[in-house]
């Protein structure tokens, strides 16, 4: 549980670093900017490589400065106000896509619900998380190439969220599971036939191991 309790601390640290903390009222009522990451952001991989581009993308801690800070509040913690898990900072974790690779969930064409035949895979992922309480989980949603692009990006997210919802009913804590959709941008296999399509319609589990 170490990592879980350390997240709020990291969050506060990030806010302080960004110099955007409305802390005057005390920690209870810290006003943060909705949508801001809970921890320091990833590296700015553009700086230096692309002059003139990305100047406005700083370290992520000062996202949408005045515009949204007036109107939006988010609770400090690992769950945002709607109950989605906060995104862990990619710098703070090591991604392991192999541990649960055999539990990749497959989906029916154009469907986002977890089939009953695939539930055991989600249950295996839940059991794994129970045994590894320090680890977090990222669920990737993917689609075959037959939908249109942004439609698939939304469908992939819906698939990842369906898996996440099932994980939560199995007792996995909401703050341990984040989702990401790749739509049809990251097929598991190339090819343009049903065999390729069925392998590409998937929800993959990426275990996030906190760095010490």
């Amino acid at each position, binding site marked *: 549980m170490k990592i879980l309790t350390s997240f709020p601390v990291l969050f506060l640290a990030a806010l302080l670093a960004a110099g955007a903390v409305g802390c005057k009222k005390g920690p209870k009522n810290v006003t943060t900017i*909705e*949508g*801001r*990451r809970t921890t320091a*952001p*990833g590296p700015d*991989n*553009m700086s230096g*490589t*692309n*002059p*003139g*581009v*990305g*100047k*406005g*993308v700083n370290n*992520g801690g000062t*996202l*949408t*400065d*005045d*515009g*949204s*800070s*007036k*109107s*939006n509040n988010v609770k400090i913690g690992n769950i*945002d106000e*709607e*109950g*989605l*898990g*906060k*995104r862990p900072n*990619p710098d703070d974790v090591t991604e392991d896509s192999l541990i649960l690779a055999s539990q990749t969930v497959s989906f029916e064409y154009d469907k*986002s619900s977890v089939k009953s035949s695939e539930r055991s895979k989600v249950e295996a992922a839940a059991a794994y998380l129970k045994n590894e309480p320090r680890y977090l989980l990222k669920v990737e949603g993917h689609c075959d*190439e*037959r*939908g*249109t*692009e*942004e*439609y698939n*990006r*939304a*469908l992939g*997210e*819906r698939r990842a*969220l369906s898996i996440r919802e099932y994980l939560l009913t199995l007792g996995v804590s909401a703050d341990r599971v*984040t*989702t*990401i*959709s*790749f*739509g049809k*941008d*990251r097929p598991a296999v*190339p090819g*343009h036939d049903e065999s390729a399509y069925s392998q590409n319609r998937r929800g993959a589990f990426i275990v996030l191991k906190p760095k010490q």
Partner: protein
Amino acid sequence: MKKAFNYWACVFTTWMGLTLLLQAQDPVIDIVNTSTGGVKPVPIALSGYTGEVAKVLRFDLEVAGFIIVAEDVAQYSLAGRNETDVEGRLTDRLSKASLLAKKYADASPRTQAHALADDVIQAIHRTPGVCRTRIAFKTEHGTSSEISISDYDGNNAVELTHDRAIVAAPTWIPGRKSLLYTSYRAGYPDIYSHALATGERKPVARYSGLNTSAAVSPDGRRVAMILSKSGSPDLFVSDLDGGNLVQLTKTKEDESSPCWSPDGSRICVASRVSGAVSLYTVNSRGGEMTRLRTAGVTRCTEPDWSPDGKSIVFTSQMGGFQICTVPASGGEAQILVEGEDPSWAPNSRTVVFVRRNKGQRTLSLLDVPTKRVKNIPLNLGNCSQPAWAK
């Protein structure tokens, strides 16, 4: 952009008698062409042009619903030269009337040719040409993709982003040289705005889950987008900087690809709220979703509202993908051509879209009235998600 350079107008003749002539003209383009089901292209002859200028004129006019023919069967004749600057005289061959006579200067031969084509299109169609407009699109590089911008015909393409991540769903801020797009550069799909002049880039939405499919309102002040922070991909609207976020749909199923009506009052979005994905409109300040009737086609996504407000172009998926239009108030859908991800030009006539051949995707231009298609002939790599600057 249209007046990016100065040109001398009307060097040797004037527009005398033009009004009378146009009134007398037969509306030839209203005749139905049986081969495509669209209206007939307008036959025009070109003479005196060489090299790049000839190529540009031919391409521009073909995209705009003309067909290049021999002098004796042409309705219009465009004659001129381009040894130094581009010159052009446009004549109606039936009435022998001169419709246009201009000489261009102070720009590259390519730009001068585009300007002449725009003037010819204006003189005959009586709507502004789009030959000097720009598009943005997604270019794939293996497992990542970037955003590129180019002239509408694919020339002068420049890669705008260098994120080495998935970058997708570009859209222009109307009237400004700025784009919004989705980038996974920080590990997750987030929406950024990007000013072309300064290179300044700002995050617009970086909530947990999905942030994508940005579309800026015609007044340039608000952003419609798809976020999943509520637990499912829903339609949201915010200020251009991401502030004052409002959730417009609250379905369990997913919404995608919003676009704005030209008056900014409504947003059209694809949704699976009632099973198969179809198009809906919703008041941009909130309200019920209303299904847009698209009789004759199913599985509709990727709507784009025409700048004149009359028509919505979208992709229907019935086996393959088809580019379709439907009146903005709903009704009978018209299937135009195989393809996906359409985006209207500012003239509400031309559409840029994506053609797929197995894994390879290329950009094409569709003239909606004639249903004629011109591929962008340059090899721009694997391209998708074109967005026409308006």
